């Protein structure tokens, strides 16, 4: 199956948050809390961050530049469906896998909620639900895609900020859009996700540098994750095995020996034997 991708064109997003609600509806996700129990985020942003029952949120960025012009930016956040996915690398339970179509699929039954993916994801996407002890994240609506539908969020998006289709098509569209934007004077317009992390299956069209949207400029699988999975674990295992084997060897070697300390009735000096 060909690679698919979701295209998020932030320049068209008006933060209506239809996608946020559509995602909850399709995935039957309850609210995080009743309104009175939810903390004030300081802006119109709904949740401070993604949450176990919230696979996608619109992040609000408000700033004022030196010409007193307000910049009000929005970004739909969620899983990037990376090719070089840190979450997959650190998930020992193999609950996360990259499907042929590009989806980073989470197998609910395998997930034990250790939260390794949550911390190691360069975007901090997965969140562990303490009640169910499962990490959750955007599924790219794999269930809908399998039935020839677009993801719920994409279907809902009214402004055309979201699109979904074969990855190469989405990339082409993104490139064209960036070109148009640059022609219209948005000099910093750029694509995010084309090369990042091996090419992600969620692609952004941004009007400004990634940092302005809370995205790492150069996302990487954390060095620590690589050290851990590719070096730490084998070395640790080797050390353990070596110690185990040596001890066992010594055990059998010494088993029959009479090495018990004897009483030596002499003053001081060195004792011999073992």
């Amino acid at each position: 199956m060909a690679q698919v991708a979701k295209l998020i064109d932030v320049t068209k997003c008006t933060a209506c948050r239809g996608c946020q609600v559509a995602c909850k509806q399709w995935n039957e996700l309850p609210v995080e809390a009743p309104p009175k129990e939810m903390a004030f985020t300081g802006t119109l942003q709904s949740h401070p961050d993604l949450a176990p029952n919230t696979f996608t949120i619109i992040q609000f960025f408000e700033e004022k530049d030196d010409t007193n012009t307000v910049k009000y930016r929005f970004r739909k956040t969620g899983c990037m469906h990376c090719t070089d996915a840190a979450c997959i690398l650190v998930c020992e339970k193999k609950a996360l896998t990259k499907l042929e179509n590009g989806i980073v699929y989470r197998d609910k039954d395998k997930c034990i909620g250790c939260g390794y993916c949550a911390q190691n994801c360069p975007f901090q996407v997965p969140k562990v639900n303490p009640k169910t002890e499962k990490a959750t994240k955007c599924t790219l609506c794999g269930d809908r895609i399998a039935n020839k539908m677009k993801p719920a969020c994409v279907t809902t998006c009214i402004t055309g900020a979201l699109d979904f289709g074969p990855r190469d098509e989405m990339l082409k569209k993104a490139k064209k859009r960036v070109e148009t934007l640059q022609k219209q004077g948005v000099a910093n317009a750029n694509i995010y996700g084309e090369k990042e992390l091996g090419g992600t299956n969620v692609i952004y069209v941004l009007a400004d540098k990634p940092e302005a949207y809370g995205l790492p400029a150069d996302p990487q699988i954390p060095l620590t994750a690589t050290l851990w999975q590719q070096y730490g674990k084998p070395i640790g295992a080797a050390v353990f095995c070596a110690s185990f084997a040596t001890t066992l060897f010594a055990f059998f070697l010494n088993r029959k020996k009479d090495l018990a300390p004897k009483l030596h009735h002499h003053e001081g000096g060195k004792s011999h034997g073992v």
Partner: protein
Amino acid sequence: MTNHWVDLKNAKAFLIEGSNAAENHAMAMRWVMRAKEKGAVVIHVDPRFTRTSSTADIFAQIRPGTDIAFLGAIINYILQNKLYDEPYVKLNTNAAYLMRSDFGFHEGLFSGFNEKTFSYDTTSWGYELGPDGKPLKAESMEDPRCVFTKLKEHYSRYTFKVSADITGIPEAKIKQIADVLVKNRPATVMYALGMTQHTVGVQNIRGFGILQMLLGNMGKPGGGVNAMRGEPNVQGSTDFALLFNYLPGYLSYPKHTQPDLTTWTKSSGTFRAKFLVNLLKSWFGENATPENDFGYGWLPKINAKENYSIFRIFETAFEGKMKMLHVVGQNPMVTQPNLNLVHEGLTKLDMLVVQDIFLHETACFWEKPGVDPKQIQTEVIVLPAASFLEREGTKINSGRLVQWQYSKIKPVGQAKADLEIIDTLFNKIRDLYKGSTAERDQAILKANWQYPQENMVEAVLKEINGYNLNTGELNKSIGGLQPDGSTSCGNWVYAGVFANGENLSKRKDNKTDPGGLGTYPKFGWCWPGNIHILYNRASCDANGQPFDKDMPLVWWDEAQGKWTGYDVPDVPSATDGPNTPNGQKPYRMAGEGISRFVACTYKDPDPASPIGLPRDSSSTPGDGPIPEFYEPVESPTPNVLHPKVPVNPCLKYPRLKSQQPIGTSEEFPYVLSSSSMAEHWCAGSVTRNIPWLNELVKETTCELSPQLAQKLGIANGDMVKVWSARGEVVVRAMVTNRMQPLTVNGKTVDIVWMPYNWSFKGLSQAASTNLLTIDAGDPNTWIQETKACLVNLKKA
């Protein structure tokens, strides 16, 4: 909307003023984005920087209630520099018409003002008429007596400097916006309650009309003046006389001064009398005959001097003169301004019937915090209504598109569809009146009211479309309606929705789009006559050929001898060519047949009337023929244009002195603007019962600038007390750069904003902004001034 939603994609520029479209008409942005993709420029003029502003190329922060000062400056700039579309103006407007010599404007007042009645004698606002009763035209638009000259004179006071002082928008920005509008045509205007909820609401919109006429943007794809209606079917409600001064189809409601059909026709004209006859035939059936004025006499008449708006409902109740109120699909205990008065009014009723899908604040008004329910004697009856998802019927969107909505969902519990409730009620009431001979009961007894229980909604739509009563066939178009009672039609603008026996509102062809302009003529049905862009004749020159060769919409086809195009041509008769009088009426709904810069009083003579009745009468706002800037009732600054007439002179406020105090800027230094938001809708009766939406926005907030917050020692997230002359609330402060103080007439003016969607019922509860807002109303429409009042605030 003169145009329609999809047509927004054809615009080269957008003036979004008094609207937060991205939040409150989110769907509009689909088409705005399409236009932007092609390079359209978006201008947003609003008191605060919103999600709509984030899509704009130019944002101008305006002081609430000063839109005419802003538009006036642009109009003046266009006039002074001759930047208008001259061929268009010459052909399509009353620019060259001669005005009466006694017309004038002085110190904030037009000629004819009566200080005692707060109203104008509008006679002097008319034209110089010829012997045929038609207006006289000047040789050139430069004639000192003509409309265009009057317009220029009027707006000559509106320099960029004056405008900047009043509105708080820097001069350079106003000029920049003017230049963009001049250079990028067609430009479309999108507005909503930010323009209308003022004591100068009608004049604000007239301002748009003048601007768009000057720029030649009316009747063209990508142009127009587009009202984005606030509710899914509010266009339908207004079409069907939601407002007290109309009958269905915007026919004016009979007044006590118009006891019979002839006196009514004297003021409304024979053209509309025909539609009234059709309406009466539809309402009274066989009982409506030429002999009895088609039952006109049975209609209750309103007192011409009285105001029957929603404000008066609660005031009348407060005065103890109203016994019972039936509220349907509305929650005035949240949405009305000056809520304390609303509550007081409700407590004085004997009985309140609420028909709604949730037990909202109006239904439970006696639960208002701080109120002792034992002291309230009002009996409350709730009729559980089916939600919009549980019933079939039409919805009419802002673009006048009639669409059928199907439903196979059964109403929850005992709930019933509104139509079913009303039908049951009516039949019960008629039973109770049976046998009465009293004249006032005849409207009910003689009514033609029998609907099948199966497919009742469609039966009503058929009645609206109307019949040829001789053949029994459904009407095909407005043109087929007869003045003699041989046809019936429940709303003339809807004639044709059931043409040829087919319910056209059910059509779903979203592929056919001749011309690629987004007209989709076979998707649903658009009133009137499936015309998608009103006044589209104006997109053509004198010969009936499109002004804009790249975006042709309709045209005169000489070979076929008829008007044709991608939209239904908006002409009185498709076969009357551009050289006939009917081919020269681009604005055929005005008596003059053309559009009016100055809304002169005018009655178009009807040569066919033996008793000299007019054919049609042009409507003129009661508070002036040209938009003039007046300050809001509660304003932080004097009116620099005419200090002696600071506010709309036709305004009567307070109407109830004890309940309607006016705050001064000394006591209440900050301007409050209020509105709805994307996540919660209107009263929130529905949306605040949806947990997913409650999660998005949790409570009422007060948005204020960092500068003001610093001055008052308020931090983002603090609770603040906000109070006006009418009430006080405690809400959370949202300190944001999106709010900025303005410099108005040399002084700093701080503006705060609050959403009004909350109250004390539902799953999400918070303070009601409308406890603060003012219930002064536009003298024409009686819409409330909820966009501008004065408040004070401090850390709670």
